[in-house]
C-alpha cells in the first residue's frame, strides 16, 4: 500500500492498480460471513483478508475499541457510537490499528462516510444501502430519496451510486477538499455536525496540514487549521515595543500585502515619518486578526470568504478573543482603526481593553479620501512615538514569525543574523529564508542541522545517496513528532543530508513500504 494523499486523519491509499481507499466493499461479492461465532468471516479488498471476530460480550464504551485481525481493524458500531465518544475513539485509531491495517467500519450510512473517512476509516460497505434499497429508496449524493418512478434494478442502481459517492470522497482527499465534503454532509445531519464539532481539536492536534484553499463559511470558524492559527496567535509578539497598532481590512487577494488596496495603504503610509512604528494587523473572518508578518503562514493566504459586510455575534466574539490574544495593552501604545465595515466593531473591542484608539470613520478605506484621512491620523498619532529603524523592525518581524512557526524551538533562528526585510527578502543568516511554499521561514540545510540540535523532528534514513524525495521504504527511524505538512530534517549515518516537508505521519513512515515520506527541499 502506498499513501498518496492525506487530509485530517483520513488517507488516500493506493492498494493496487485501480484500487484505492477509502473503498467500499459489496456484501454480495466481497464479504463472507463466518461459520461460527468465534471467527469473523472474510473481506475482499483486492485480496481476501480475514476479519476479526465480532465483539461478543464487549462494552463498546471501553478500550480497546477496535477488533483486529492481521490486516484489518474493525470499528464496530461506528454508525451509532455517541459523537463525542467516536471522536475519542478516533484519536486512538492508529495507535490501536497501526498504519498497515485497513480500518473497516461496517454498516454505516453513506451520509456518515465522509466524516468517518476524515477521521481515518479506510473501508466501508453497502449493508445499509442494501436495506434501504429493499424498502424502495434511491441513493443520490449520499442522501436518500423516496422514489416515485420504478427503477428497474434499484439495488444495482444504488450500488453504482454508492461507488460514485466513495469516488467523490477519494477525489476530495486528493484535492484537499474532504473538509468541504464533510461540511456539506453535516449541514442538515445533526450526527455528522456533532462529530465534526467535537473533532476540531483532534484534527488540530493530529490532522495532516493540507495547504489547500479554505473556502469559508460559518462552519469554518471550527476548521482545525483556523483554530490552530488562532491558538498560536497567543504566542505571537509584534516586532517592537511601543508600536502603534493599525487595524486594516482584509483583502480578496492573498497574501494581503499583494492586494491593490494594501499596496495603496502602504504607499500612503510610507510618506509618514516613522511609519515603521505602525504595525499592520488585518481584520478578517474566519481567521480573526492577521499581523503582517504572518500573512504567508497557512491558512492566512489560503482562504476565501463571501464578503457581506455583516459580522455575526460568533464572529465578533471570535474577534474579541483574538484581540485579547494579541495583548494590545502590553504591546502597543495606541491604535488606529481603518477597517471600513468592521471599524466600529474593532474600535469598540479595542476600547474595551482600555487602549487609546482612533477610528478613521471611513466607509471606503482605500479611496483617495480615505487614504488622506489615514495619512493624517497616522501622522498625528506617530508624532510622539519613539523612532523605529529598519533593522530593529526586521529583527522583530523575524522573531515574531519564527516564534509563531517554530514555537519553543525557535531560538536558533532568533539568535541568527537577521537581514533583509519583509516580505520576501527576510532571512535568518544562512539558516532560513522566507518561503511562500512553506508559508514562513523555510529551513536551509544548515538551518536543518541547527533545528535538529534544537529538538526539531529528525528522520533517520537508510544509507544511500539521497536524490530527490525520501520514500517511506528508505526510512529507518524517527525522533520527535510532527504532522503532515511540517518541516523535518533527514539524517543519514548521523549526518544531516536533507530538509523537507513531511508527507506522512511518523509511525506511518515506518509502516509503509511505498510512497513519498518527505518532500525534500534542500539536499546536502
Amino acid at each position: 500500500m502506498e499513501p498518496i494523499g492525506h487530509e485530517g486523519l483520513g488517507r488516500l491509499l493506493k492498494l493496487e492498480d485501480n484500487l484505492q481507499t477509502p473503498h467500499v466493499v459489496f456484501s454480495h461479492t466481497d464479504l463472507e460471513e463466518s461459520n461460527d461465532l468465534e471467527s469473523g468471516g472474510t473481506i475482499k479488498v483486492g485480496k481476501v483478508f480475514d476479519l476479526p471476530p465480532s465483539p461478543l460480550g464487549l462494552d463498546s464504551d471501553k478500550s480497546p475499541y477496535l477488533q483486529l485481525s492481521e490486516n484489518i481493524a474493525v470499528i464496530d458500531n461506528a454508525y451509532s457510537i455517541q459523537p463525542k465518544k467516536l471522536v475519542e475513539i478516533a484519536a486512538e485509531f492508529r495507535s490501536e490499528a497501526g498504519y498497515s491495517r485497513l480500518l473497516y467500519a461496517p454498516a454505516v450510512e453513506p451520509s456518515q462516510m465522509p466524516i468517518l473517512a476524515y477521521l481515518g476509516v479506510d473501508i466501508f460497505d453497502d449493508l445499509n444501502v442494501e436495506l434501504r434499497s429493499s424498502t424502495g429508496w434511491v441513493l443520490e449524493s449520499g442522501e436518500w430519496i423516496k422514489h416515485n418512478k420504478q427503477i428497474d434494478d434499484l439495488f444495482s442502481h444504488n450500488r453504482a451510486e454508492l461507488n460514485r459517492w466513495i469516488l467523490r470522497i477519494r477525489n476530495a482527499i486528493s484535492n484537499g477538499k474532504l473538509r468541504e465534503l464533510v461540511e456539506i454532509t453535516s449541514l442538515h445531519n445533526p450526527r455528522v455536525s456533532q462529530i465534526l464539532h467535537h473533532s476540531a481539536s483532534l484534527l488540530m492536534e493530529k490532522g495532516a496540514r493540507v495547504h489547500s484553499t479554505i473556502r469559508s463559511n460559518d462552519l469554518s470558524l471550527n476548521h482545525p487549521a483556523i483554530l490552530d492559527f488562532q491558538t498560536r496567535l497567543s504566542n505571537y509578539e509584534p516586532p517592537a515595543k511601543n508600536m502603534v497598532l493599525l487595524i486594516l481590512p482584509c483583502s480578496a487577494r492573498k497574501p494581503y500585502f499583494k492586494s491593490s488596496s494594501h499596496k495603496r495603504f502602504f504607499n500612503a503610509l510610507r510618506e509618514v515619518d516613522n511609519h515603521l512604528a505602525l504595525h499592520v494587523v488585518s481584520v478578517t473572518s474566519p481567521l480573526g486578526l492577521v499581523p503582517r508578518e504572518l500573512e504567508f503562514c497557512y491558512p492566512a493566504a489560503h482562504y476565501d470568504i463571501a464578503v457581506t459586510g455583516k459580522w455575526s455575534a460568533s464572529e465578533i466574539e471570535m474577534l474579541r478573543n483574538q484581540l485579547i490574544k494579541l495583548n494590545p495593552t502590553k504591546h502597543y501604545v495606541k491604535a488606529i482603526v481603518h477597517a471600513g465595515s468592521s471599524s466600529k466593531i474593532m474600535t469598540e473591542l479595542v476600547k474595551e481593553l482600555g487602549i487609546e484608539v482612533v477610528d478613521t470613520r471611513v466607509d471606503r478605506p482605500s479611496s483617495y479620501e480615505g487614504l488622506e484621512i489615514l495619512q493624517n491620523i497616522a501622522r498625528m498619532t506617530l508624532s510622539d512615538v519613539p523612532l523605529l529603524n529598519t533593522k530593529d523592525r526586521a529583527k522583530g518581524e523575524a522573531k515574531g514569525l519564527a516564534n509563531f512557526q517554530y514555537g519553543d524551538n525557535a531560538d536558533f533562528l532568533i539568535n541568527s543574523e537577521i537581514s533583509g526585510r519583509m516580505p520576501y527578502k527576510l532571512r535568518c543568516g544562512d539558516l532560513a529564508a522566507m518561503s511562500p511554499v512553506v508559508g514562513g521561514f523555510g529551513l536551509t540545510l544548515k538551518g536543518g542541522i541547527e533545528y535538529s540540535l534544537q529538538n526539531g523532528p529528525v528522520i533517520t534514513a537508510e544509507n544511500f545517496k539521497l536524490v530527490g524525495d525520501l520514500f517511506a521504504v528508505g526510512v529507518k527511524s524517527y525522533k520527535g513528532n510532527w504532522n503532515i505538512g511540517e518541516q523535518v530534517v533527514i539524517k543519514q549515518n548521523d549526518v544531516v543530508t536533507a530538509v523537507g516537508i513531511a508527507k506522512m505521519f511518523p509511525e506511518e513512515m515506518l509502516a509503509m513500504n511505498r510512497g513519498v515520506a518527505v518532500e525534500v527541499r534542500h539536499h546536502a
Partner: protein
Amino acid sequence: MPEAFVPLTDFVNESKSIPRDHPLDKPVAKWTEEEVLNGEIVEAGVVILRTRGCYWSIKEGCSMCGYFNDTVPGGVSDDMLREQWKKVRPTLKGKKYAKIYTSGSFIDPTEVPFDFADEVMSDMSDMGIEKVLIESLPEFVNPKNFAYANSPKLEIAIGLESSNPIVLDKSVNKRLRWSHYVKVCKLARDNGAEVKAYILLKPPYLSEKEAIEDAVQSAIDTAPYVDKISINPVNVQKNTVVEKLWFRNEWAAPWLWSVVEVLKRCEDLPVRVYSDPTGGGTRRGAHNCHDCNKKILEALKNHRLGLKELKGLHCECKSRWDALVKQSALRRNGSEPHGFRSGFAGSRHF
C-alpha cells in the same frame, strides 16, 4: 463451570442498579391467561411473588435479565411471603393451572423457604389446582428441594437460554454446563416433575440470523430431555446489558418473523415448541412493522394454544426481514437502522 468471560461480567454488573424499595407484603403481579392443560384450553392463574431474587443476579446476573429490579435485596420474611400469598389466592381460586413465579428460583430454599413452599403447594392442592408451574436455575433442581408433602403436578421451567457454550458465556453470561443441564432434566422427570425449557431468541450481540440458528439448534438439542419448549424472544428490561446495547443502537429486539421462523423450523420436534413474546409488538419486545404486530401476535397465541397452525402469514415487512436476515451476520451485531421495520416511512410508532 466454564471460566467466566470477564468483560461481559463487568458489563453486566455495571449495568445493574440497586432495586428501588418495594412493599414487602404485596406480590409483584398477578393475572390470568389462557393455557393448555392436557390438550384443552384452561384459564391459568399467574402470580409473581416478591422475594430476595435470583442468587445469580446478586452475584453477577444475566445480560438480558432485569427481574432483579422487582426483588428485595435484604430478603422477604416468611410472614411477608404469607401476606403476599393471601393476596394472590383469589387469582388462583378455581383454576386448574397455576404459574408461581418469583424473580428467581422457586426451589432455591434460600430464596423461598422450603416450609413456606410446602405450605402453598398443599394449599394449591386443596384448591383443586392440578398443575403448577415453577421456575428454577438448574443448580437447585434437586429432589429434596421439591419433595413437597402434598402438591399438584409439578412443572419445572429451566432456563437453558442456549445450548451453545459461547452464547451462554459471551452473550448471556450464564454459567450453565450442558451435561449438568441434561442431568437435572432427567432428575426432575425421574422425580415426577415435567420439565419446560426456556430458549432465548436473539440474546445480545447476536444478529438476527445467528439468533434464529442458535434458537433452532438449542431447541433440537434440548427436545429429547424436556416436555415442552418455550421460545423467549429477548426483550429490553431495565438496567441490563441489553438495555444499554439497545440505547446505543447496537442491538434491536428480534422480529416476530424470526419467532415464526424458529417455530416453523421446530414443527417436527417431538415436543411442543411455542412462544409467548414478552412485550411483543412494542419497541422493547419482539416486533415487526406496526401494521402486522397484532396479527402475528394473535397467530402466535393461537399456535400456542394449539388452535391454528402458523400458516399464511404475510405482510409487506417480511421482505425487509428477509433482506436483513440475509446480511445480518455481516453486520457483526444485532443492530439495524432506525425505522427499517416500517420501511423508513417516518412513522411515529417505531
